[in-house]
């Protein structure tokens, strides 16, 4: 009698460009999942890595695994975030394992550890390598975590485990998810991070990272808002100071004709413009919230305390 878990899980993989390496990664992960779960499905997201997808299909047909394999083929290369979202949308499991990166050096036991952790009541569990990630990405995470209001912090990661409840919640909060990591941290659900020592060297997935980083900062933190508002107000202050200086000079030093008028126009104009900017930025941040956030507030859970 085997005592495999009864929950149905989906394992979602982002296919890499090296067909054989991708296949052996998936095969190994499946072997582990197979040993733990009675029912699971495999979803491979093919972000224009057709050779890997073909190879996987071929080898999988030859293997004797009974779990269904679904390959989601993206029409044009859209990057990890978009592609994995498609994979998540088609998955049917109670739990979703997201394997974004076949170079994550994930040691065997981590998958099970994540599942156990989630059973403790964490809807989102992230496995994060102790070593790995580039200097710039570390800087980005520092800025992000500094300005984000989320309970969870983000960092380099090798795998995510989501419960169906978490997926439903994420759909309810945001109409679309441009950056999963940040959305998970911002979801208000209970999240946990497990650190692991990579079995092989951790190599990040290539992606449009600068664009992603800026989007994430704008959407999930108030760093961009605070920075731009600060600049506008600072510039407004300078322009206003210039106005005061002009007034002082005009009253005390009798400057050449025309200087005062030019200076008055310039400083008043700039003050007005920067004040306007500050207001526009405030407007924009409200708009981002209106469009992007479907819900006004986030509740992690409701505890009822009853008097006996």
């Amino acid at each position, binding site marked *: 009698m085997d005592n495999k878990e009864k929950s149905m899980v989906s394992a979602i993989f982002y296919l890499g460009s090296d067909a054989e390496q991708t296949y052996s990664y998936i095969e190994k992960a499946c072997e582990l999942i197979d040993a733990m779960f009675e029912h699971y499905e495999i979803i491979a997201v093919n972000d224009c890595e057709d050779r890997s997808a073909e190879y996987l299909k071929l080898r999988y047909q030859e293997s004797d695994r009974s779990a269904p394999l679904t390959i989601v083929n993206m029409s044009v290369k859209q990057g990890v975030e978009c592609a994995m979202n498609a994979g998540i949308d088609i998955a049917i499991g109670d739990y979703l394992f997201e394997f974004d990166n076949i170079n994550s050096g994930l040691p065997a036991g981590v998958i099970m550890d994540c599942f156990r952790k989630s059973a403790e009541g964490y809807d989102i569990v992230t496995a994060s390598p102790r070593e790995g990630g580039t200097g710039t990405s570390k800087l980005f995470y520092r800025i992000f975590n500094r300005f984000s209001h989320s309970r969870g912090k983000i960092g380099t990661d090798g795998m995510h485990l989501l419960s*169906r409840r978490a997926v439903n919640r994420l759909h309810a909060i945001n*109409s679309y998810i441009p950056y999963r990591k940040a959305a998970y941290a911002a979801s208000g659900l209970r999240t946990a991070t497990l650190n692991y020592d990579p079995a092989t060297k951790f190599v990040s997935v290539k992606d449009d990272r600068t664009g992603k980083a800026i989007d994430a900062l704008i959407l999930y933190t108030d760093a961009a808002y605070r920075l731009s508002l600060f600049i506008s107000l600072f510039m407004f202050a300078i322009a206003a100071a210039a106005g005061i200086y002009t007034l002082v000079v005009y009253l005390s030093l009798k400057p050449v004709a025309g200087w005062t008028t030019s200076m008055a126009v310039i400083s008043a104009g700039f003050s007005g413009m920067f004040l306007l900017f500050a207001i526009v930025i405030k407007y924009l941040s409200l708009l981002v919230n209106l469009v992007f956030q479907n819900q006004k507030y986030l509740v992690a859970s409701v505890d009822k305390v009853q008097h006996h």
Partner: protein
Amino acid sequence: MTYDRVIIGAGMFGLYAAKMFGRMGQNTVVLEADSDAMLRASFVNQARVHNGYHYPRSMATAKQAGQYFGRFSEEFGDCINRSFTKVYATSTNFSWTNAAEFKAFCAAAGITCEQVDHRKFFNDGVVDGVFLTEEYSFDADLIRTKMMRELSSMDNVQVLFSHRVDKITRKNSHFIVTACGEEYETDFVLNATYASANEILDMAGFDPLPTKYELCEIILGEPSDTLKPYGITVMDGPFFSVMPFGCSDYHSLTSVCFTPHATSYDKLPTLKCQERSGECHPGCLQNCDLCNAKPKSAFHYMHGLMRKYLKSEYEFNYVRSHFALKLILKASEIDDSRPTVIKESSKDPAFVTVLSGKINTIYDLEEVLNG
């Protein structure tokens, strides 16, 4: 023995044809391989009385389906479950249609469709439109009883069970159909064997129809109290359907991806499970539902799909699975305005094959058999 009409197969189509011939005063015999009528596709299916909702991409089919729907619901009114609300939803992702399209389509086809809030039934973000529609579920057991009662009151109609046809020869202007060593002579053979249609055509030396086959699983289960008054279908793509199974206490659960277990593209259905079954082989198809080499149930996957979409109070508890071979006609054979294929392989004596993917298209039989 000589008959005016010999019908092979006592599924819905064979029985309905027998009734028509009987009324016309023809001396008719129905030869059926199984021990009772309607034990294969006519019983093992979703029991949906189609009303056109399934064809958001084909207006002609939808309109036609609406006409069949009305007539069938009237004639078999006492064998139909109308006591549930049918919910159709269009999936947000991976669907070939969307809410706006579906609504426009229903309006154009003139079928009932009232848009409601998704939150009553579905999790957030999974569907982009939810509609209350009108669709029923037929009860194959009740239909069998009704049809057999009607036929038994006709002196000129005989239905013989456990009579598998294993030989068909032509003698002058007659066909001789052999079952259980008995010969049945006639100048009109109706082949109503659905998944075995090509087997019978082959036996008689006629060209087969271009078909493919899918071994399908229909799951029956107990719906939770919240689910009970509803039938729910998510479309149009790799989704699922959960709806009352006739007038029984059960709902059926099916899904486009997981209901088919095996596919055969051969002229005669060739499947791996046949090796294990012993009796069944491509030229001699047995009843999949009674077979001992049935595949393992895909319940967990179908259930997973259902849970992904539906709120947790809409539950379904597994009771049992039924299996049948589904026949799919190649596109070239399908005429949208008449989804039934009626093929006349020989005129005099007549050898006619009837094939349809829908129970309530039995009325297509009239056109040919009256003429």
